[in-house]
């Protein structure tokens, strides 16, 4: 594979733009100055880059667990954890210590090797997927030519890992939870990929840094040229957003791990650090897929307003990531859990038709815009997307509305 992640020339080592690159560059410079061979320098550089990514996101995961609890608490009119340290900032540390010191219980009927392997296999795709996302102008840990395909390929490994986790536990709840989780993830992966397909078609490339670069510039001086600011992009972006909630098994799609439904689903028989790994894998997967959504639809590291060149590009990326994650938390606090049949019906009857419609919409939009007919593009694509949506919504409302109750023995 052609992996060239080391930029050739850097303007200044300590500029804020290249701050994320700093550890890698420092290690490379040190190793080169002591005369280490080329392969060692590149491997060490990659190691440091990978370590930085994992370290940053593991720290973000810890912070997110605290912020999630406090945000959920504020929505529910209570204060979140505030006993461990000032405003509960040490709560993730306390949680980590708790997870590490818990007894590791493996059921007697479990498959030992698979039971041990499953948490690792769940965390692995998330970390791999984090490596291809462009966080800033020069900062894609591994800028692959086929970055998006790599992302989807490792993402599809998660389903098998969940099955291994559920089956290796050797008991009913994990098995049932794993089956539900797999069916949910497979159903929602389709609209995810079809929505991404529209972006690929318009951008003409699978490489994620290139997709971000193609979303630069501003229409009318102040509207950014992100993919979400187009009609097909709005629909595809919304679909991607909903599917990423379902892929990460978060509320309202957290049936596989709902506590009131099946204890903890495929994670039931895991305790201690393995459970912490599951937890981490879920949140890292959330980061990865929201990062991908931001890259494909929200313009990645592009600034939202013109004239803000002095702000480093990774600031915009992480700002958008923070907003998207906050919206996930808000949605978690608001909506009840959907049932498995409602989930499936929603995916197959509503999301896949809409996702399939974004493809011709994206094509028509791009062709008409390249031909210079901007207004016609709007006039054609907006009804093409809006009318089927309204029809589907009306059909859903009619068929799924509860029947009016009539009481046989009550007085009127």
């Amino acid at each position, binding site marked *: 594979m052609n992996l060239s992640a080391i930029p050739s020339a850097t303007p200044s080592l300590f500029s804020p733009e290249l701050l994320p690159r700093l550890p890698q560059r420092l290690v490379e410079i040190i190793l080169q100055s002591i005369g280490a061979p080329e392969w060692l320098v590149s491997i060490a550089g990659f190691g440091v880059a990978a370590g930085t990514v994992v370290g940053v996101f593991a720290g973000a995961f810890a912070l997110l667990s605290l912020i999630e609890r406090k945000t959920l608490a504020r929505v529910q009119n209570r204060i979140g954890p505030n006993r461990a340290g000032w405003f509960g900032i040490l709560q993730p540390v306390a949680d980590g210590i708790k997870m590490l010191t818990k007894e590791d219980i493996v059921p007697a009927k479990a498959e030992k090797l698979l039971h041990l392997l499953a948490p690792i296999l769940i965390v692995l795709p998330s970390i791999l997927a984090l490596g291809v996302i462009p966080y800033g102008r020069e900062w894609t840990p591994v800028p692959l030519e*086929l970055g998006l*395909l790599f992302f*989807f390929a490792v993402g599809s490994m998660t389903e*098998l890992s969940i099955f291994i986790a559920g089956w290796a536990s050797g008991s009913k709840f994990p098995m049932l939870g794993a*089956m539900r989780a797999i069916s949910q993830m497979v159903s929602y992966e389709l609209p995810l990929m079809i929505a991404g397909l529209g972006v690929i078609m318009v951008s003409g490339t699978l490489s994620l840094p290139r997709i971000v670069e193609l979303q630069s510039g501003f229409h009318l001086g102040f509207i950014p040229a992100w993919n979400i600011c187009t009609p097909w992009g709005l629909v595809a972006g919304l679909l991607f957003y909903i599917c990423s909630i379902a892929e990460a098994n978060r509320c309202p799609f957290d049936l596989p791990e709902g506590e009131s439904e099946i204890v903890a689903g495929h994670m039931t028989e895991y305790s201690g650090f393995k459970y912490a790994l599951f937890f981490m894998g879920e949140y890292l997967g959330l980061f990865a897929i929201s990062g991908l959504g931001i890259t494909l639809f929200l313009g990645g590291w592009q600034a939202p307003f013109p004239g803000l060149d002095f702000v480093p590009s990774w600031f915009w990326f992480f700002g958008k990531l923070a907003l998207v994650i906050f919206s996930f938390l808000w949605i978690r606090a608001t909506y009840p859990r959907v049932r498995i049949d409602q989930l499936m019906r929603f995916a197959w009857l509503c999301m896949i038709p809409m996702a399939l419609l974004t493809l011709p919409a994206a094509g028509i939009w791009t062709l008409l815009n390249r031909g210079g007919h901007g207004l016609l593009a709007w006039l054609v694509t907006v009804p093409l997307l809006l009318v089927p949506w309204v029809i589907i919504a009306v059909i859903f409302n009619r068929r799924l509305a509860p029947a009016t109750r009539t*009481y046989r023995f009550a007085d009127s």
Partner: protein
Amino acid sequence: MIALLILTPLILFAALGAVWKARPVHAALLLALSLALNAVLYLVMGADFIGLVQFMVYVGAVAVLIVFSLLITRPGDEAEELARRPRSVLPGIACVLPVLAVLVFTVSKVTVPESGSTASISLETLGKALFTTHAPAVLALAVLLTAVMIGAALFAREPAKKPQNPSDS
């Protein structure tokens, strides 16, 4: 070359295990492992696209499908499976040998390019070829898959019930 030497025995072991193991789920997972290692082989040989697609399709879809069908059809227990095995391995070898001979013959006829360069076809040529030269095959496959999906949906459908009055039960 080193990668090839490491990968090939692993793939062989995984494939043999997939065939040999008594419990179906183990066999399915070992099959998934051998397919994943195949994908790694493609990546090592420089066919990026095919490798990633192999991973996505086989490990992400086919293996999940196999495993799912195993769960739903719920095979019998281990002793039953072991008892159903044939006593000797000779019929198996008798079936495999001709196939192996044909494979070896075909592979020996292939000429490998001398320079060890990664002959990578660009994605664009691949896509164009798929939809112009090989379009009939792709369309036939699409029709087949649609038929399969409709058939499966019809097969698994419950008989439609009228919405009942909730107080009538």
